[in-house]
């Protein structure tokens, strides 16, 4: 393996551009992230465990990860359906709907937060019909789940759409020739091809929902032990100047994020391989 200097590079500018890239990356991303690590190791192992397994913290994990899992599940199923409808069928307004699917990506989280909170609050547009039926959405974990569904909506749609578009109709026709009815063709031919993409989208939606703050904070009740999400707990600890506690919990979230990132990369590799 030759050194950087010895390799004969035709195009100019490798040195300066790589140098600038690494410098800027370190200054803005790597060094600040390392501050988290360095602060965490000032705690003893026992202090760290106490900080991240306190009852209130554990409750926040349950709320955050639980709601994110359910929301990503809903998005997985309905997002896949939306992708199917957008790719396979033609109807008036299809292109407009396709563009609108990206709204949760583009809409600032605070706007989504206050809007969802006001719609589902007891006298809101939907809340006023749901409350009498006994379905309390605002200020409960159910509201957190609703906000997370909004946030994760585009992920599954956008990962499944390209796979559906590449799907060869000949395979379905062959299955039909061999005697499969439409449902069988879907279950045994189409769905297995879509599964890696759906799981990737699910994981992306889950990862986004777990870290989400702005969209969730207004509709959640923010009551400790009941409807408090982990990011809020971090901010609360910061406001109480408990930097060590905040850092410990943030480290747990970071580890969860990286694990999810790794899973997503593996899923994407699987998805690419099965598409060939």
């Amino acid at each position, binding site marked *: 393996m030759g050194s950087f200097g010895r390799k004969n590079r035709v195009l100019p500018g490798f040195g300066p551009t790589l140098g600038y890239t690494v410098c800027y990356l370190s200054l*803005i*991303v790597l060094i600040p992230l390392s501050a988290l690590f360095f602060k965490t190791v000032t705690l003893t192992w026992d202090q760290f465990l106490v900080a991240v397994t306190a009852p209130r913290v554990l409750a926040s994990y349950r709320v955050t990860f639980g709601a994110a899992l359910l929301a990503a599940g809903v998005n997985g199923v309905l997002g896949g359906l*939306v992708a199917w409808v957008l790719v396979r069928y033609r109807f008036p307004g299809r292109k407009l709907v396709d563009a609108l699917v990206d709204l949760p990506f583009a809409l600032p989280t605070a*706007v989504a937060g206050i809007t969802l909170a*006001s719609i589902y609050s007891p006298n809101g547009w939907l809340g006023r019909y749901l409350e009498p039926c006994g379905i309390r959405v605002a200020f409960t974990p159910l509201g957190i789940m609703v906000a997370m569904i909004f946030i994760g909506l585009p992920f599954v749609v956008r990962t499944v759409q390209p796979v559906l578009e590449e799907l060869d109709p000949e395979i*379905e026709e062959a299955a039909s020739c061999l005697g499969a009815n439409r449902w069988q063709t879907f279950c045994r031919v189409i769905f297995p091809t879509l599964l890696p993409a759906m799981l990737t989208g699910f994981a992306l939606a889950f990862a986004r929902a777990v870290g989400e703050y702005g969209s969730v904070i207004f509709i959640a009740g923010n009551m400790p032990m009941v409807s408090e999400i982990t990011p809020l707990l971090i901010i609360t600890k*910061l406001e109480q100047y408990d930097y060590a506690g905040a850092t410990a919990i943030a480290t747990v979230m970071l580890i969860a994020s990286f694990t999810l990132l790794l899973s997503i990369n593996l899923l994407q590799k699987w998805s690419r391989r099965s598409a060939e």
Partner: protein
Amino acid sequence: MVTGKNGDGGAPGVSEPAWVRYLLIAVALGFLALFLLLPLAAVFVQALEKGWAAYLGALREPDTLSAVRLTLLTAVCCVPANLFFGVVAAWALAKFSFPGKSLLITLIDLPFSVSPVVSGLVYVLVFGLQGWFGPFLQVHDIKIIFAVPGIVLATAFVTFPFVARELIPLMESQGRDEEEAALTLGAGGLQTFFRVTFPNVKWGILYGVILCNARAMGEFGAVSVVSGHVRGSTNTVPLQVEILYNEYSYAAAFAVASLLALLALVTLALKTVVEWKIRQGFSVGSGEN
């Protein structure tokens, strides 16, 4: 009106019966209407609840105007910086191969997988009072956390990868042939970049800038952690929305929120146009724009 992809009414073997199709479309559109259209409509309806005069009055409030100024300032600082980085990084990573390249690409993507609150927290750990530079900054009376520079830095972190991750695959797929040809014809490095590379990637750059800007102007979690929430000086537009909502000024909160919603709609429209242009570029062949 509702047909299958190939325009057929539905050959029995390769498409669903019509009633299934209608049902699926109804469920899908119902889901989207509930989760997308309803909130979007709610923003504008609630913003105008008290009429146009109140709406415009809310937007002309001094605190709101200073929030708009701060948001614009943040975008003006972060977007060009991350744009420059994105172009430089894409050149280094797409046009050359070297050990550690995929690690570097993964590291560039890191801010995407970090929760916004954690993004803000790490800057507090570096520049806050108890942080690495805390004592130094206090002695020299430089304010970063709970002041504008902190907001700009946290926003730069969160919007860091947008341009780079658009350009790197784009430039990789375009290869090095045209640049190498330009060099053999005597062009210098910068000449090659501006006259050969740039026209090929300009739509990708625009796409990345649009997304970067939308996120920079709308960021809430990270900015919430590093801002002092002081009205009129360290509040961005999203933070101002939060303040107004928390003090029950709902019409005003939604009025300010409607600005961000309009920004989102413009972003979506521009994004769709640029995507179409990029697709066009691929079908016509690169370099023929």
